[in-house]
């Protein structure tokens, strides 16, 4: 999975949901937390990773990048 949310650290501030240039995240109304809904569209730009105030997002690069 490209962008991974650590829900133990996530405070539900909506930053990633707001700024993702591709709109990879959706908002889960039940948990009031972001969700990586369109992971196949993520291009690893790292904007959510750099903007997350709690460092709750990790980016995993695919094998063919190696």
């Amino acid at each position, binding site marked *: 999975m490209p962008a991974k949310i650590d829900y133990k650290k996530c405070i539900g501030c909506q930053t990633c949901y*707001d*700024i*993702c*240039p*591709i*709109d990879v995240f*959706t908002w889960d109304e039940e948990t009031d937390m972001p969700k990586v*809904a*369109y992971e*196949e*569209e993520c*291009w*690893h*730009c*790292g*904007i959510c*990773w*750099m*903007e997350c105030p709690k460092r709750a997002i990790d*980016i995993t*690069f*695919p094998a*063919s*990048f*190696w």
Partner: protein
Amino acid sequence: MSIEKIADKVIETDVLIIGGGIAGCPTAVKAADHGLKVTLVEKAKPERSGSAGQGIDHYGIFPREGVTKQELIRRWEAYQSLLNGEGRFGDPNLVYKYYDSAFWALEELESQGITMRWDDGEYYWMPHGRYGGADRIMLRVHWQNVKPEMAKAVRERDVDILERTMVVDLLTNNGSVVGATAVNTRTGEFIVIKAKATIVATGLFARCYNPETPLFWKYKFRYHWCPATVSGDGWGMAYRAGAELACMDITGWHFRARDDLTISYGNFNLNEGIAGKFLTWKGKEFGFPNAGRYAELEEKGNAPLYQTLQHLPDDYHKRMEVAYVDERLVSFKVAEDRRFNPKTHYFELMPNKPHNFMTAAGISIDEDCKASLKGLYSVGDCSAGWHSCGHAVVTGLIVGENVDTYVNMADEPVVDEAQVESQKLTALAPLSVKDGTEPMELECAIRYVCERYVGQFKSEGKLREGLRRLGSLRREFLPKLMAKNPHYLMRCLEVRNIMDLAEVYINACLERKETRGNHIRLDYPDRDPSRDSMLTYQRMEKGKPVLDIRPVPELKPENAKEGN
């Protein structure tokens, strides 16, 4: 039925700006400062959207330190020829205007609250190695947060920002552009925007080719452009509305560094003015090659080809690190995860292919950035002739400064209901398709056509076969596109733009029956002198594609006078 009944929302505005990137934001600020009602439509959110979303490390080229505008025009033309061969590939008067406005634009940016100076309060001028000059004519900027700063300037003004909204098509009336229709890609809301002036600022096009990493179902391109930016939305909508596109046969050619990922390792040295070393796998050094030279090296068994920075001194590597912070923070994570040291790494230069249209192509504009349709402007990477962040800012500011003159004399926009209805159908139809085609499946099919039948080494038979295959994809699959939710409506509309532009692209390549620079036709291996400095212009007229070949404008005498 009235427009209000067809659309979920109708907006009336003086100026509609499509795209809130590094060109669209300064345009919006300037137009709002002139007292105009401004609506900014943005596919994501201006704080981090567009090519500059992750940040930028350098800005602009300035006529200073004895380097005249005329000398800069000569260097720009030399760079174009390095890639595209003999002749000229863009209006030099536009280039003149860009250099002539450079210092004015710098002041404007600072007045909009954009950080241009370093912590000590000074500008940092760095040498610009790319055009061969070592003059200090380019600004080194710490712009990791340039987009948040630009977005803040827009939000401080009374600008109506429609986020997560994608434009479907432009609205036209008697040959004038009178606004656009759009769809919110989270709610599916269909919006009509009536505007006196419409400014397209959506960036480049590249998605008719495979991404650089071998994951064909994914978005991944060279390090500069966000995939949402390079779907060619602005070019597609302008072309369908009848505006002219220029130079669609001229695709840029550059290296793709295999280990580059999202970042600029190995490319930044160009911006810092110090060259990295290019080596064959046997360690033999070679100079910066173009497409033909690269193919030659590969044919003779010299591949893989590498670029390395390891011979450079430590202070240089420290400067590079700051550049990564400014332009691609994620690059540190890439190097860490992959456990390579950028200082000593050999970056593989990947086989060539025409993967973008970054040297000359785009919406054809005049010196005021007006497109060939009344009421339509194009700023930034969307426009033909020049692509860079410096150019994006300058063209945006020029239009923002002058668009009020047009708005004040323009008629009230009158929108055709039938046109709105048909655009609504186009935009929303995929929501009701079941068992259809996913947009990424069709996008992959289009990319395959361009990879297989266009590519770097072209010939008439393959181009015609490509065109035929595109035609059958259009017939069979475009009507079957399906969207599970409004998010995928965005992808469906993108595929439609990619398909239209791939067709324009192949038509342009077919018509250029010669080999010139990186345009390589195996069936016409020689340069055709009658095509020297002749550009390809394409537009739609009454539903039919029209192709024109016209000369590049000459530099006007007043602009050519040294020192002017």
